[in-house]
C-alpha cells in the first residue's frame, strides 16, 4: 500500500483514495491541425515507461479531487517528491510518505 502526500489536503493518505492518471508533463500539441500522424501517435500513445524514476499525475479522487504530480521510483515504489500541477519537481517538496 502506497502512502501518498496530497499537496492540497496537506496530509498523507492511503493509495486507494487516489487514481493514477499516467505519465506527467506530456504537453498537448499547440497546433493540432498541423500535426503529422507520426506526432499525433507519439503524443497519444508513446510513453517513457522507465524502470526507475517516473513522473506521473495522480488524482485525489475520493478526497479533494485535485490533480497533482508525483515523482516515484517504479522499482522501489519510493515517492521522491510531490508537487502541484504547473510546478517543477524539487527536493524541497518532499513528502514524508
Amino acid at each position, binding site marked *: *500500500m502506497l502512502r501518498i502526500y496530497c499537496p492540497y489536503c496537506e496530509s498523507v493518505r492511503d493509495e486507494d483514495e487516489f487514481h493514477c492518471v499516467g505519465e506527467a508533463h506530456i504537453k498537448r500539441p499547440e497546433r493540432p491541425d498541423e500535426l503529422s*500522424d507520426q506526432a499525433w501517435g507519439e503524443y497519444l*500513445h*508513446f*510513453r517513457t515507461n*522507465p*524502470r526507475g524514476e517516473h513522473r*506521473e499525475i495522480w488524482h485525489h479522487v475520493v478526497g479533494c479531487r485535485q490533480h497533482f504530480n508525483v515523482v516515484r521510483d*517504479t*522499482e522501489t515504489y519510493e515517492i521522491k517528491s510531490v508537487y502541484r500541477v504547473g510546478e517543477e519537481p524539487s527536493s524541497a517538496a518532499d513528502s514524508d510518505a
Partner: protein
Amino acid sequence: MTQHYSFLQLIRQAINHHEGWKPAWNSVEPKDSYDIVVVGGGGHGLATAYYLAKNHGITDVAVLEKGWIGGGNTGRNTTIVRSNYLRDEAAHLYEFALKLWEGLSNELNFNVMFSQRGVLNVGHSLQDMRDIERRVNANLLNGIDGEVLGPSDIQKIVPLLDCSPQNRYPVLGASWQPRGGVARHDAVAWGYARAADRLGVDIVEHARVVEIPLERGSHSVEGVVIEHDGERKFIRARKVACVTAGNSGVLASLAGLKLPIESRPLQAFVSEPLKPCLDTVVMSNAVHGYLSQSDKGDLVIGAGTDGYNGYGQRGSFEIIEETAHAICELFPAFSRVRMNRQWGGIVDICPDACPIIGRMPVPGLYFNCGWGTGGFKATPGSGFVFAHTIAEDHPHPLAAPFGVERFHSGALIDEHGAAGVAH
C-alpha cells in the same frame, strides 16, 4: 543428443534406477557472434527460437535470458488458454495459437499438460450478456467454437458457482469455449527450450542485455552487450529480436526508442490444495476474478493489474482484496480456503490491449511485446509468426495488423473490454 521421451525410455530408465536421465537442455556460454539473437528466454522467446530453427532452418541463434528458464512471466501466469476474442485480427492470431496448442505435446515430445477443460466467461448484467452474444457470434463466424449458456446450464458445469438470482451480481449467463483450458506453464518453457536446444539453438541463462549498440552509418543493429558471470561481453548479431514482456520499454530505450507500452504488475495467487471441485476455467470481467483448479488441487486465482506503473514483482494490496471479493462473490464456498502463495509478474500493456509484433524503426531490430495480461495463451502462435517475421524480414500475414505502425496510422485493434479480456 537429447533423449527421446517415451514409454520405452521410461522403462529403460526405471531399470537403471532413473540415474541415466540427461538434462533436458544445456545452458551454454555464448559465442562471439550469431545470426540472430533472441533477447528473453520466456515461452515466447524460446518458441521464436524453436520456429526459427524448425520452420526456417536458421540455427545460428542464441536465446539470452537474464534469469533462468521458466522464472519470468512464463512461470507466473494463471495458465489459461482460449481464443474467444472479438476482433478478427486478434481472433485469428489466438485461434492459430490454440490449434498449435492442440498438437504441442507431440510436436515438442514434452508433456505440456494441455487440458481442454473449457472456459466460461460469466456475464452479470444485460450489457455483459449483449457483449457475450456478440462475441460468441463473432467467434462462430471466425470458425472458433463457442456457445452462450444460461444459468441452469452453467450450474450443471460448475455446481459450486453461486447462480442464485438474489446475488448482488447475479450470474445471467456465460460464453463457453469447450476447446479452451489450461496448460502447465513452466513445462511450455522447458519443452520449447529442449526442442530448440535439440535443433542447435544456444540457450544462455543469467545473461542480461545492457546495451544495444547501433552501427554508426546505417544505424542498424550491431549486436548486444550482455552482463554474464559478472563480465560484460559484446555479441555480434545480424538481427536482434526482443521478447521481454514487462521489460520491453527498458530494452527499447537501449536502442533509443519509445514504445506505446506501460508496465505494471499483474497478480495471481494459489490456495492450499483441495480435493477436485472445479474442472473448468471460470472467468468474470464484471467482478474481475478468474480461477481454475490445478492438477495438484490448488485453486489458481488471477487478479487485476495495479493502477500505476511498476516493476515490483508483487502487486498492491487493494488488488488482493478486490480479487478475494470477486472469488467469494462467485464461489461462497471458497471463502474459507487459505491462500498459499501470492506473486506478481510485470506485464506490458498496450493502449489497445493487443501485442506489437514486428520490425522496429532501427534496421535489424524486432520486437514481440505488448501481450499485456494475456500472452501465455498465445505462446506457440506468437513464436511461430514472430519467427517468420524475423526470418523473412516481412510480417507473417497473421502478424501484419500488429505492427507498431498502427499507433501512428490509427488502425488500433480495440480488444480492450471488447472480448473476454479478463486476461
